[in-house]
């Protein structure tokens, strides 16, 4: 009988069903002649059978209460927060929104895109700021790359405001899905770990320029405005009076006189 050369790796692949049909037949033919290799294959198959038999019980075991509860009550996970925020928007019953509308009712020329801007910005803020390890995709240490990348995706030259004078430093930024296409989210942090986010996206309605507007929901304050073809929203868990000077600085810097 011909003694074909079969490697160890091929024997493993044979046992694991990862050979082509032709190769598998070649190995099977080899095993008829090679009792040592046949014994090896039998032993490995036995190991697999043993593993499956020993741990099969785990497949039918009830899911531990702690784990099921953790999955069902994701109070601390980003998508839970996003879901809560989205539910608030859908229902439109946020007391904060109502009171803020009373303080600063949106003018009648408000487009749909503009009216949803603060909500979208607040959701992005709520989703990304709790991230400890991965709050941003590109960090401030690569600011030139961050600016170039986001500018390319947004289709306009993005300016990254510097807020050191306000006590906040840039953490970095990420690409996000905005209403009509790509958007950017820049994140800032102060010495106390408080985070601000600047949401930037294209304004497809081309609303021109608008004044500063303010919204507040779920503890997140947002100043938002449209300038040219870009919409901006600065969000943070700060009182309105604390956020306003920072928003003014951002606005001035974006307009080149900061």
């Amino acid at each position: 009988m011909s003694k074909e050369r079969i490697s160890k790796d091929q024997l493993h692949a044979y046992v694991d069903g990862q050979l082509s049909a032709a190769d598998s037949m070649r190995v099977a033919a080899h095993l008829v002649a090679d009792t040592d290799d046949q014994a090896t294959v039998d032993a490995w198959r036995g190991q697999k059978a043993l593993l499956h038999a020993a741990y099969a019980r785990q497949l039918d075991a009830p899911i531990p209460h702690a784990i099921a509860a953790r999955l069902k009550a994701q109070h601390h996970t980003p998508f839970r927060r996003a879901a809560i925020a989205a539910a608030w928007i859908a229902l439109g019953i946020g007391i904060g929104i109502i009171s803020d509308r009373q303080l600063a009712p949106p003018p009648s020329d408000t487009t749909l895109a503009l009216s949803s801007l603060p909500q979208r910005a607040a959701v992005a803020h709520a989703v990304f700021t709790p991230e400890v390890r991965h709050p941003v995709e590109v960090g401030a240490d690569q600011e030139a790359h961050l600016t170039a990348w986001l500018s390319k995706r947004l289709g306009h030259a993005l300016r990254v405001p510097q807020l050191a004078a306000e006590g906040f430093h840039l953490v970095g930024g990420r690409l996000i899905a905005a209403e009509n296409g790509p958007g950017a989210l820049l994140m800032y942090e102060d010495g106390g770990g408080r985070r601000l986010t600047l949401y930037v996206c294209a304004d497809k309605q081309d609303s021109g320029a608008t004044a500063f507007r303010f919204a507040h929901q779920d503890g997140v304050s947002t100043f938002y405005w449209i300038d040219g073809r870009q919409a901006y929203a600065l969000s943070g868990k700060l009182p309105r009076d604390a956020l306003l000077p920072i928003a003014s600085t951002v606005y001035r810097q974006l307009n080149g006189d900061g």
Partner: protein
Amino acid sequence: MPAEHAILAEIPRLRRYARALTGNDTDADDLLQDTLERALGKWLLWRPGNLRAWLLTMMHHVFLNQLRSRPALVPLDDDAPAIPVRPQQQDELEVRDLDRALACLLPDQREVLLLVGLEELSYADTARILGIPQGTVMSRLSRAREKLRAILAGEDRPVHLKVVK
């Protein structure tokens, strides 16, 4: 919530793998729970694709972290006292035999052995999950299977189980 249902469906298999990897229920559930925390925290980064492979990758990283932060378990030597086990717990006895045999493998060999032998993943998927070249998967698999074979054949005896009548 789609995330909850999709992840929930993967839990039995993840749990089986965690149990075989850690050798006991407590550590397995710790590993599973930490893995789920990590997965939920990163859920927004998940791109539609192979959810099981994504979760197993998370579990691999959590497992490595736990290995680093915990004192290494040293396999019992030949003088270790036998653990009495009643004969009616035959199933349990077999599982514990296997647990002890697996505990004698290096953790990185154990991962490969289980991903291939228990989870029935392809060598390519195993390599991706563990972040190693496929050649390394093959060499670890080979060492793990040879060592396990020797243990189960009684040539290398880590198992000290005594049936108490």
